[in-house]
């Protein structure tokens, strides 16, 4: 059955269909065609084809049996390295089917693991290297410990160029018979922040409303998906109403299930739209940076965000 979710329906299923990543593609295709791959580390931002590449590799290797020989895990979803280890263990226990003498384990967001957990992962990789190949994906390879990096062939995926994303979207538009104005494509590309998955999701979401997509329509969809109301939180704070600001913040965080880091990101961007003196903008940006730093170090994002809001209250009083 072909999925009706476009990110799946139009996911490239062979090396030829991939857009961008030409250099990497050549090397990986050569490895795959030799039916022997090393452990691999895919590094690069979200939505540029890391998971897709892994899927193509296993489909090429195992053909119709790929599902039995492929285990996909997400490090930030699993509860700790032990769960990962257990799953790997039970998957690796049986031998692979077909002529390829190993199975493939794809561990997404491997940089979500702590260095200690990565050490444990390294041991797991060693223990099962006879029967399994690991493909790890991460946003930043610097967050992967050296011993793992040294055991993997590293592939750095580049951000997709605008023309690549456009080419890919064009394919979908033609197949789905929707029309999108050139300005709308422009906005869609900006809204996606170079993330191809996001671009496709935005396109499908908008297309579900109308088949003739205008710039206006796509802007509405994008803004409806953004964490709203961060501005309201800041407005309350600048007006000196700390309690309301704090309540609103908690409300947003819970309802939209957005992380503290995402809130900080929005606050940092929103500062430039606030009616405050340039000097204060700089000060608040510094405070925001400090809050983000502490948020990463600390345990409770909400406490760090409240402390930041208290700085906004001061700025509102002109004492920042």
């Amino acid at each position, binding site marked *: *059955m072909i*999925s*009706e*979710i*476009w*990110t*799946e329906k139009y996911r490239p299923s062979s090396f030829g269909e991939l857009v961008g990543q030409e250099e990497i593609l050549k090397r990986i295709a050569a490895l795959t065609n030799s039916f022997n791959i090393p452990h691999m580390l895919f590094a690069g931002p*979200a939505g540029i084809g890391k*998971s897709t590449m892994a*899927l193509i590799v296993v489909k090429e290797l195992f053909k119709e049996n790929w599902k039995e020989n492929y285990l*996909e895990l*997400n490090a*930030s*979803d699993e509860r700790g390295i032990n769960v990962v280890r257990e799953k790997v263990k039970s998957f690796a226990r049986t031998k692979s089917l077909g002529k390829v003498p190993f199975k493939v384990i794809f561990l*997404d*967001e491997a940089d979500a693991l*702590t260095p200690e957990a990565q050490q444990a992962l390294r041991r797991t990789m060693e223990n099962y290297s006879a029967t399994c190949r690991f493909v790890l994906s991460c946003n930043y390879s610097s967050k992967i410990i050296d011993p793992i990096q040294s055991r993997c062939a590293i592939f750095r995926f580049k951000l997709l160029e605008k023309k690549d994303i456009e080419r890919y979207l064009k394919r979908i538009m033609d197949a789905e018979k929707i029309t999108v104005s050139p300005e709308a494509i422009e906005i869609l590309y900006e809204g996606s922040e170079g993330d191809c*998955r*996001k671009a496709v*999701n*935005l396109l*499908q*979401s908008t297309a*579900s*409303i109308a088949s003739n997509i205008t710039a206006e329509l796509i802007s509405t*969809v994008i803004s*409806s*998906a953004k964490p709203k109301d961060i501005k309201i939180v800041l407005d309350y704070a600048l007006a000196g109403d*700390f*309690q309301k600001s*704090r*309540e609103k913040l*908690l*409300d947003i965080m*819970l*309802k*939209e*299930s*957005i*992380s503290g880091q*995402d809130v900080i990101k929005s606050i940092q961007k929103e500062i430039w739209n606030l009616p405050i003196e340039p000097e204060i903008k700089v000060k608040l940006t510094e405070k925001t940076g400090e*809050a983000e730093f*502490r948020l990463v*170090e*600390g*345990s*409770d994002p*909400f*406490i*760090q965000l*409240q*402390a930041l*809001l*208290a*700085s906004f*209250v*001061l700025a509102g*009083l002109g*004492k920042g």
Partner: protein
Amino acid sequence: MTSQTFAEKYRPKTFADIKGQEQAVEIAKKFVGEFNLGKITKSQKKALVLHGAPGTGKTTLAHVIALETKSEIFELNASDLRNKSKLQETLKPAIEQQSLMSNNKIILIDEVDGISGTDRGGITELLYLIEGTTYPVILTANDIWSKKLAPLRKKADLAQLKEINYQTIKDVLFNVLRKENLFLNQNIITKIAVNAKGDIRAALNDLQTVSKMKEPQLLELDERNKETDIFNALKIIFKGKPSNEILRTFDSVNMQLDEIMLWVEENIPAEYSGQELAKAYDALSRADVFKGRIYKQQYWRFLVYENILLSYGICASKKNIKTGFTSYKRPTRILKIWLNNQRTAKKKTITEKYARLVHVGKKRALNEFPIIKQIIKSNENIQKELRLTEEEIEYINRPVEINYF
């Protein structure tokens, strides 16, 4: 001369000897009475928890019940309850051997607070014991309202022993002095009684110490460290002057520092504003940074800094001491998170199904939920593809989210 402490020597032997706990005595009498008459109906509880602050006479009351009903006490402690076989082994003699002196037995489990809540056995074994017992079970506890004792509360009668009022304590002290042929200045006795804060054992211990002194008039009794409740602690931190004493404020609060942090967080805005607000939150935020470091590095000495910032740091954020009454609020954040989780449970399960199908992490999918929701909502085939349940489909189609707060 005997080396017994006054508290042991003058421990009450009859119900009538017990002062200031009439209500608890009544409940206890009724409980054992009905039990021994063999009239255990289904509604009748098989266990009685005597609870109250230290030194209010819980264990004493248990022993008096035994004396008055001519029962033998069979005492268990928390470690006997660790597992089934250990429990049965310990209980065997009690159940099998007929007592030489009397036919009645009472099973006493002293200081049940010490039982482990999460460990294997523990409370489960205790409930099992109560379920099957043919003898009345009496338990004592300091804090019956603690979370881990919740299952016990349903299975047992409760009798609270109140903190004994200072007048009653004074009477008891006079009585002891008379029997001991001692004389003490009235003021000193009053002082001891007040200082004990409802703890009669403490009062008797102090009395014994003082009666041995040559010049009891010069007595400066050390303030007994009693538990401060969180409201009081907040008052000290928020209103008081920063002093070294402040550092120990949270030591006497029977609450984890994590929970205290939530209380502080909730109530800073009730007390501070402007510059002070920012300073206080800065201290709180730094305390949290140390908390994070403790978790990540398992380096517990950072706790010192967390505690100092949370107490002294918050206290020193203000220019002047504060007066007046502030009503402090219970932290509501955890409750809100819980409520929200209930409400968004469907969102989570939908996201999980979606994430699995499209090879993406759950967290990332959750971040893009508004867009994903629109896609799923508009296409019934996708709903089938994801194997959404009826409730999940209903959630997807729900028009607006209602504001609960």
